[in-house]
């Protein structure tokens, strides 16, 4: 029986020369979890994955798989398997031989081997492709062979290094859902590396957002999107407006900041803040609302008089850029809930408006 976490990293460091590619990363990944490492390229997410696979050894800290220290265990003795970004299928072997490779290395008896290879190919819906060579298959099919080749070994943890990166948009969406349902069926812990925030939000139980070798925040997709704890996460996941200022009032969960030109704005504080501290208000464009000045009421929580500057109609939404009186611009997205060609139903450039945002929809961040 396994105890504790599927994967545990404690203060793991990886240096290449002077550069710390992974800088004191601490993570606990639960059994059966779909866990994503999300960040821009060069953030250390792939290096972290390679250390779990055993292709790189940590310069410091501790890495455990189901409680067993992995510091000196070579990759071929680790209970994990990897789906590579390039798939890394063996081109000189058929699909069946590729899938059988891991079992052959473990000297699984022939009869059992054949049955398991067949089951793995069935699982990824490639039953009829056993005798093909990888080069005779499409990118999406090769991707599924790579999955079968890894899963047939029944690893304790499956590592996926940007496996959807090479696929086109439509196939990518399909594979996202397929991967997720596959993970539910096999019940194996998946660690998924990606730079695509939408992909991570769609598929993950939890996400670790990384930048410059550090883990900035770990949480469910909702937590990461709705309650980012720092500017980087707020900016990297989805889109947002930032307004710089200074904390002037601070309560239990909410704080008010004041911009250099005297505008006072209130928002939720995911982390405690202190009065006088420099802070940034993060306001997602879909969480603000534009109303006509005549509809504004004095008890609206936080309002800003603005002028509509630019309107972009993108079908489901209308994206409106508004200019504040002191000069800065903000983005506001309105869902097009009405179906009409009437121009009066939409905002017009130059129109005066009031931007409304309840404090619960905005965040005050200090990092």
């Amino acid at each position, binding site marked *: 029986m396994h105890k504790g976490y599927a994967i545990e990293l404690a203060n793991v460091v990886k240096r290449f020369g002077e550069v710390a590619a992974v800088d004191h990363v601490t993570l606990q990944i639960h059994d059966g979890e779909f866990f994503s490492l999300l960040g821009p390229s060069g953030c250390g997410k792939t290096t972290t994955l390679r250390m779990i696979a055993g292709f790189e050894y940590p310069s410091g800290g501790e890495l455990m798989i189901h409680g067993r220290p992995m510091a000196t265990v070579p990759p*071929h003795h680790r209970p*994990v398997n*990897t789906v590579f970004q390039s798939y*890394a299928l*063996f081109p*000189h072997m058929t699909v069946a031989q590729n899938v059988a*490779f891991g079992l052959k*290395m473990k000297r699984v008896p022939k009869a059992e081997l054949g049955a398991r290879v067949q089951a793995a190919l069935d699982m990824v819906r490639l039953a009829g492709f056993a005798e093909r060579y990888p080069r005779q298959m499409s990118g999406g099919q090769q991707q599924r062979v790579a999955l079968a080749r890894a899963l047939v*070994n029944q690893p304790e943890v499956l590592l996926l290094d940007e496996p959807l990166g090479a696929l086109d948009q439509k196939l990518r969406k399909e594979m996202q859902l397929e991967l997720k349902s596959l993970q539910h069926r096999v019940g194996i812990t998946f660690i998924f590396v990606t730079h695509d925030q939408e992909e991570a939000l769609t598929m993950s139980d939890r996400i670790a957002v990384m930048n410059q070798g550090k883990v900035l925040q770990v949480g469910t997709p909702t937590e990461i999107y709705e309650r980012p704890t720092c500017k980087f996460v707020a900016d990297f996941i989805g889109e947002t407006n930032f307004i710089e200022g200074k904390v002037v009032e601070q309560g239990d969960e909410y704080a008010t900041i004041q911009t250099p030109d005297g505008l006072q704005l209130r928002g939720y504080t995911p982390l405690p803040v202190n009065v006088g501290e420099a802070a940034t208000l993060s306001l997602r464009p879909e969480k603000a609302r534009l109303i006509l000045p005549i509809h504004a009421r004095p008890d609206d929580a936080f309002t800003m008089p603005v002028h509509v500057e630019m309107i972009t109609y993108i079908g489901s939404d209308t994206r409106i850029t508004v200019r504040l009186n002191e000069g800065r611009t903000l983005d506001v997205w309105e869902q097009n809930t009405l179906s009409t060609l009437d121009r009066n139903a939409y905002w017009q450039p130059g129109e005066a408006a009031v931007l409304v945002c309840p404090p619960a929809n905005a965040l005050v961040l200090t990092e």
Partner: protein
Amino acid sequence: MALSSFEREQQRHEQRRLMALLAPGMFWLLVFFLVPLLVILVYSFLTNGPRGNLLWQPTLQNYVDLFTQASYVNAYVRSLWISGLTTLFALLLGYPLALFIVKQPPRVRLVLLILVLIPFWTNFLVRIYAWQIILANNGLINATLAALGLPTLFLLNTEGATLLGLVYGEVPFMVLPIYAALDRFDFTLMEAGADLGASKWRAFWHIMLPMTMPGVAAGAVLVFIPTIGQFVVSELLGGAKVDYIGNLIQRLFLRSNPPNWPLGSAMSTVMMIVLLGFILLYFRSTTEEDR
């Protein structure tokens, strides 16, 4: 689809241009390669005169001699054997060396490749004489052994010395094609192998070696073929104690009194046919790779 007259004119023009590119090389091969080859083939069916002069009497006697006289058959077997050994040792030395070079950063690679090629800047014969100096009874190795108070060795004029000289000369021809194959090899596949439970050795055996086989085969052909006809190394380092096919041919054409060109030609022809067999085998193996 019918082609317009303009298109047909264009095609004819293009064909003429290609023929023009082909002509000089074709001419060269015909005159300087195919004609001598035919001369040898014709000679091999002629009779040798008493003073080494050619008699225009067609005969198969040369071929009969070749396959019935033990000394000739032995020379063939010995040549095949030492060429095989040379190829094997060149492979055992060349593959690790090629792998080492590929694993270096680009700048170092270039330097190492140049180092592999540097011996070619000196004449092969001169380099073999240098080996004589190293291996001689009072040569570099034995002088060192003597200075250390150790018993000296009989190195020069042995079959071992022949093998050493051949391997020495042929290793670069093995390294270069294997290097080219390894350069194209995706080393992520070795990680995939390790990930799937293969030790370094098993990953090499099941993944890297089969995938670089075309390089190994090309290297083997490049080493095996010149080695089978060689006569310089076995004469200068082996002391001409035993005959290889190259030595026999050279003697029949140049040294024996009277010379026997028809028999020498027959020997060359048989050697070429054997080599042709190996080359066909090689092409079969590479085309199967591509299928």
